[in-house]
């Protein structure tokens, strides 16, 4: 048993590969379109921010081996709450926390049913999706549509530094950095790996998987709350139903970012680049005149390919990477 002090070379992890792809995309778009203009960059950053935050949230849920497909509809509730409170005259210090709390509550409910009754999260959130959608139309006045919210609501969402960097993007990046830090420097972060990787091993390490899953759902709710606000506050009106289906972007961002659907592996930074990738793809298609609905087919294919690469990680893909980088083969 000798120390393996192989000198560390550059090793292309999944995240760095993805980052390079994103970079290539940016350069490509800048070269071929007016993407590099002030407005192009601004709208990219504005659009990608909510997805970054939400992808981190759902990414952590996926980490633990669960999933949430009611993200889109939860966002709708958050946006509605904020809008309704603004209409009622609430200041930002009230409506922002209240709206986030709604996200925490809804995600917490998903987590509670998942953990307490051992109903798989996929089914819980699938059903919740329906409940939410039905709720908008049935119980919210005008299906939750509120207009003319005014600058009290939009000043933050539309605000920008140096006329190009949206406030929302700064929020998203701060959150991303914070969670990268959390994953590395908090016990909670380590716990997530353990619970998703091997629940039995986690128990042997003295971790309570149920508690962890519950916590992670609450955290997801918090992040979905922020994500929904980042998007809603850019507009002068809220309409819950526009959020329906947005979970697709969030989930595919997380999966493309290398967060394994089987749980236990992946990086927050991957989810961030995943979100950018997903958006750049969208933008590219729009620039090149593809209709909106090509998105659906493309996202489907992307999810499949991303997950295929992840699950066959220790197979060909890794061997290929290793051959390229000359790292010693894996013994296990």
């Amino acid at each position, binding site marked *: 048993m000798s120390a393996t002090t192989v000198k560390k070379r550059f090793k292309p992890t999944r995240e760095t590969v993805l980052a390079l792809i994103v970079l290539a995309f940016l350069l490509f778009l800048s070269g071929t379109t007016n993407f590099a203009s002030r407005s192009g960059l601004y709208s990219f950053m504005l659009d990608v921010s909510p997805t970054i935050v939400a992808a981190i949230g759902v990414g952590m849920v996926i980490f633990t081996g669960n999933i949430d497909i009611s993200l889109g509809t939860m966002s709708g509730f958050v946006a509605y709450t904020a809008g309704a409170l603004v209409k009622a005259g609430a200041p930002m210090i009230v409506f922002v926390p209240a709206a986030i709390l709604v996200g925490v509550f809804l995600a917490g409910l998903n987590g509670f049913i998942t953990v307490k009754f051992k109903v798989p999260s996929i089914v819980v959130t699938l059903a919740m999706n329906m409940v939410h959608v039905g709720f908008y139309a049935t119980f919210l006045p005008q299906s939750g549509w509120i207009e003319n919210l005014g600058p009290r609501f939009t000043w933050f969402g539309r605000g920008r530094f140096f006329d190009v960097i949206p406030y929302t993007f700064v929020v998203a990046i701060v959150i991303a950095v914070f969670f990268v830090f959390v994953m590395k420097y908090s*016990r909670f972060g380590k716990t997530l790996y353990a619970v998703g990787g091997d629940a039995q*091993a986690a128990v*042997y*390490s003295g*971790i309570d998987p149920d508690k962890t899953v519950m916590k992670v759902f609450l955290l997801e709710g918090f992040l979905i709350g922020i994500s929904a606000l980042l998007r809603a506050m850019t507009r002068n009106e809220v309409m819950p139903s526009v959020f329906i289906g947005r979970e697709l972007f969030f989930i595919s961002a997380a999966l493309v970012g290398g967060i394994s659907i089987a749980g236990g592996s992946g990086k927050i930074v991957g989810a961030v680049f995943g979100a950018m990738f997903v958006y750049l793809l969208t933008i590219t298609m729009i620039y090149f005149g593809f209709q909106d609905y090509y998105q659906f087919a493309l996202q489907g294919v992307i999810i499949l390919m991303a997950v295929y690469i992840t699950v066959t990680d220790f197979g060909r893909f890794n061997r290929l990477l290793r051959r390229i980088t000359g790292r010693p083969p894996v013994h*296990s």
Partner: protein
Amino acid sequence: MSTSNILEIQGIDKQFPGVKALSNVHIDLREGEVHAVCGENGAGKSTLMKIICGVHKPDSGTILLSGEPYTVENPNEAYARGIAIIYQESSLLPELTVLENIFMGHEPQKPIVPFLPAVKMIDYPSMRAKASSIFERLGMQIDLDAIVGTLGVATKQMIEIAKALTFDSQILILDEPTAALTSREVETLFETIRKLRAEGQSMLYISHRLDEIFQIADRVTVLRDGEYIETAPVTSVDKNQIVSWMVGRTLTNLYPKEEVEIGDVVLSVEGLCQEGVLDDIDFVARRGEILGIAGLAGAGRTELALALCGLTQPDAGEISLNGERVSFESYRSAMDHGIVYISEDRQAYGLVLPMMLRVNITHKVLPSISNLFGIIDRGQERGITDEYIEKLDIRAPDGDFVVNNLSGGNQQKVSVAKSLAVDPQILILDEPTRGVDVGAKSEIHRIISGLAKMGKTILLISSDLPEILGMSDRVLVMKTGTKAGEVMRRDMTQETILGMAL
């Protein structure tokens, strides 16, 4: 060495549905000793450990830790009380580094904000320092940033020990730590254990490998069928004494081997190779013969079985049945040729535990008892089920009984029945008595003997040397994927077989 008891286990009882797992078990662990707990599979060793670490709750009895009553709800509390367990099942996460693994769930932390002591972050420098000192203590050099999944089994085992040591525990419990190790690795492990003992660490060492116990333990406690039998210093007993405590009867009764006329060659294998697993295996097996296949874990015995019955595909080599060359593209085709495999892990591969007896017993014969549309003939189904319940004396009220509710031994019989139902010519039994109590064990041996007498060819894979010695007509010894040798019954001794296997 002081003689005060650090851990006293008194009168522990534990009942599982249908099984009495432990009754009136007591053990006292002295400070600074290595105390071996031994017993056969199913003797209750693992259950006892799970009670100590809070996975199971005892029905009655008390545990005293340093004289204080000790009750814990989960492994975390056990750690907090100073008891660390090294499990048989790995508790390591392959995707994480050595450092992250050994401190999983209890990383040292430090506050980050001056006036908010509750906000903490993991203190990597102190974690690293602590880890280095532990590995130094173990006399082991390791890259703390290595990904655990890329390391070997033995290294992982040492990491498990290091992980246990991070808890600053008073008591270390090792549950069959050598199960997957090679002999040299075992020696390294033992050195570590001796080193720790010299530092005054108290350890419970669970094993059924007697040689190890004599090498490493100070005292030994024997359990049998969940009952306490005896405790003695290892210097005052010999191996035979412990064996007789463990089995509770003389060995000759345990292996009801019958002399059977051995017929022609049925199966012959030449030059069987499978990349990284099997290397040039040759052997023959005859009608009525029980061919033992011995070797250490990882020697390729199960892999050989899988390749023989079409569950995996060999890269090279020939398999002949009754002189005719065959190759199986699937297990189904091997079964059609009369070869069946009875898996070592009946829970994972052998049986569908939550389903009924008749479903399990007839699973392999379904194609022959159902019609063109796959509709199962209920009469035949019941007939076959009842036949085997009776033949193998499976203790279940009827064929509708759920297999999960049977004892380990009876489950194993169901597993055998399932394969017998296809009326095979060759049976490959992989560890047929693992996890089975002593009574059922000898019943299974009797069944095996009976099958040989009927003219079946049996390949008996076993890690249990006495079983190999007791049952086989001939033994094929394997070592790291190769054939290490063959021994006839008259030349068989533990030493010759072990000599080849190591």
